[in-house]
C-alpha cells in the first residue's frame, strides 16, 4: 500500500458535479499529512477533457464505450482491479446517486472497509479520522481510518469545491478490461419536464417540509409566497407524497436554489436537502424542533410551531405591503 488518495471523479452528461472537486480538496488534505499523491480516477468515453480542471497530481483515465455514462455494473468491473494494482491508502467516492451505487459493491468485491456520509477528515500526520454526518444531520460520528486501505463516501459541506480546481494533472491512460455482458445499461435519459418555475433562478423561495403536515396546508405557504412575490418549493417527503411536483424539489436529487431569501417552513434540514440550499444568500428557518439541523445552516431561526406563526406572519406581511 502507498499513501495515495484516490478520488473517483463523478460526471453526468459531460458535466462534473461539485462533489468531485470537494473530494479532491479533501484528498489534498489527507495526502498532505503523509506525503501521498492525489489521484483522480476518471472513467468515460472520449472524456479526457474532463480532467483539465482537476486539482490532482495524476489522473488515471479509463476509456471505454460502456463508460460513456454512469453504469454501476461497468464501474464495478473496472475499479476493483485498479485499486488492487495501485494500492492507495483510501478511495473517495461521492455519497451521491453515483458514488453510493458503487461504494457497497466495491467494499464487498475488494474486501475493503467502508465509511459513508463523511463530511470532513481530521488529519494528523498519517493518522486520519473521518467525521460523518448521520441521522438526518443530527448526529456526527468519528471513525479512525485504518492504516490499510479504506473506502469513504463524502457529502458536501466540509471543503470548498474551488480548492479542488486546478489544471496541470498528468493523465495516465489505463486499459479498460472487457466490459461485455454488462447487466445494467442506460437505455435513455429522461429530461425533467419543462416546469412552470425554474427554482434555480427564483430570488424568493418558500420551502415546505414534513412539518407542513397536510397537502391543504401548502396553501398557507402559497399565500405567503404570493405576498412576497416568491414561489413554493419543498423537501423530499412533501414531493414523495405528491403534494408538490418534482420540479419543486430542492436538494440532492432536485434543484439547487440560489435565492436571495430562502424561507423554510417545517424543514428539518437533512444533508440531502441542505445540499440544495447553501447557495442562497439568506436562509430563515421556522421549525418546532430546537435541535433541527436546519438551524445550523440558517442565518435566522424561529423555534415555534409554524401553524401558530403563519397567520400572524401573513397578516404582518399584508400590512407591510399595504403601508
Amino acid at each position, binding site marked *: 500500500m502507498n499513501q495515495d488518495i484516490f478520488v473517483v471523479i463523478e460526471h*453526468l452528461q459531460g458535466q462534473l*458535479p461539485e462533489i468531485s472537486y470537494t473530494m479532491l480538496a479533501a484528498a489534498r488534505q489527507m495526502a498532505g499529512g503523509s506525503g501521498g499523491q492525489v489521484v483522480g480516477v476518471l472513467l468515460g468515453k472520449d472524456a479526457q477533457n474532463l480532467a483539465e480542471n482537476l486539482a490532482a497530481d495524476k489522473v488515471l483515465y479509463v476509456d471505454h464505450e460502456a463508460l460513456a*455514462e*454512469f453504469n*454501476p455494473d461497468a464501474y*464495478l468491473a473496472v475499479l476493483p482491479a485498479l485499486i488492487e494494482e495501485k494500492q492507495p491508502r483510501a478511495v473517495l467516492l461521492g455519497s451521491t446517486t453515483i458514488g*453510493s*451505487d458503487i461504494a*457497497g*459493491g466495491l*467494499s*464487498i468485491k475488494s474486501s*475493503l*472497509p*467502508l*465509511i*459513508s*456520509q463523511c463530511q470532513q477528515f481530521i488529519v494528523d500526520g498519517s493518522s486520519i479520522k473521518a467525521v460523518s454526518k*448521520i*441521522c438526518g444531520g*443530527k*448526529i*456526527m*460520528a*468519528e*471513525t*479512525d481510518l485504518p492504516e490499510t486501505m479504506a473506502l469513504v463516501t463524502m457529502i458536501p459541506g466540509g471543503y470548498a469545491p474551488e480548492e479542488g480546481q486546478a489544471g496541470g494533472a498528468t493523465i495516465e491512460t489505463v486499459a479498460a478490461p472487457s466490459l461485455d455482458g454488462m*447487466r*445494467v*445499461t*442506460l*437505455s*435513455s*435519459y*429522461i429530461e*425533467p419536464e419543462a416546469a412552470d418555475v425554474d427554482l434555480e433562478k427564483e*430570488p424568493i423561495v418558500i420551502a415546505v417540509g414534513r412539518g407542513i403536515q397536510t397537502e391543504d396546508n401548502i396553501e398557507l405557504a402559497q399565500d405567503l409566497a404570493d405576498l*412576497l*412575490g*416568491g414561489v413554493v418549493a419543498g423537501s423530499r417527503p412533501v414531493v*414523495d407524497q*405528491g403534494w408538490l411536483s418534482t420540479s419543486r424539489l430542492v436538494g440532492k*436529487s*432536485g434543484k*439547487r436554489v440560489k435565492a*436571495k*431569501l430562502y424561507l423554510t417552513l417545517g424543514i428539518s434540514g437533512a444533508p440531502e436537502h441542505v445540499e440544495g440550499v447553501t447557495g442562497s444568500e*439568506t436562509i*430563515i428557518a421556522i421549525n418546532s424542533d430546537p*435541535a433541527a439541523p436546519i*438551524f*445550523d445552516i440558517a*442565518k*435566522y431561526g424561529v423555534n415555534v410551531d409554524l401553524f*401558530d*406563526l403563519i397567520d*400572524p406572519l401573513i*397578516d404582518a*406581511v399584508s400590512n*407591510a405591503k399595504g403601508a
Partner: protein
Amino acid sequence: MNIIVIAGLVPDLVEELEIDNGGTALDTTWLRMIINEFDDHAIEQAILLKERDGGHVTVLAIDQEGIDEVLFTAAAKDADRMIKLLGDFEQGVNSHALARVFAEVIKDLEPDLILTGVQAHTNLDGAVGALLASMLDMPYVGYVAGLETTDGKVIAKKEYPGGLIGAMEVTLPAVLGIQASEQPPRYVAVSKVRQAMKTATIEEQDAVAMDPGGGLDVSRMFLPEAAERAEMIEGDEDEIAAKLVELFKEVGAL
C-alpha cells in the same frame, strides 16, 4: 415475479437523539423507532408491481421491537409472505452484517427482484441493498423512483440531480434501492392491520451469526457543533412576525 422486500426500523428523527454513556452510539433507552421511510416506499413499489403484473411479495426483516406491526401492515397491503429473522440485534448491527444475514436467507428464496430502501439515515458503512447485491452477485441500481418490468429485465428510473432521470435497463435477478415508489405508500386502516394480525403469519427463522466485517467501529459520536448557528428570533408570534417582516425588507423581499 418473485419479489423480496427488505424492511427495517430507524430512529424517529422527530424525537431528540442522545448519545449513550460510552460516547460511541445512540442512547436507545427512549428511542422511538419507525419504519425506514424508503423501505416503506419499497414495500409500496412491490405491491404496485404485484397489482400490475402479478407476482409474489415476501417481506423480510430482522427482529426489532415494533417490526411485527410493519410486517402485519405489509400483509394488510397484500404482501404474501413475511419472514422475521431472529438474532441478537439489540446492540445495533451494521449494514455489512445485515446484508450478510439477508444474503444467507435470500439464497434459498430464488427471487427475481429484491427491493429495499436506498438508504437508512443510520447507515455508516453504506446501504444494505448495494452490499447485498454484490454478496449475491446481482446488479444493483439505487435512487430508483418507479420501474417497469419487461421480459427478464426491469427498466428502473434512477434519479439524478436536477430532476434528470436515467432509465436503466437491469437484467434480473437484481437488487434495487428505492428512493420513492410511483405513488405514495398507501394508507391501511388499523382495522385491516388488526385483521392481518389474526389471519397472517410471520415466519421466524434464525439469522446466521453476525459478521460486521467491512464496517468500522465509531470512536466518538457527538451532536453537531455548529460553527455558526442561526440567530434565533424570540418573542410572541406577533413580535416574531414583525421581526420577520423587517428581515424580509432587509433582504429586498418586501
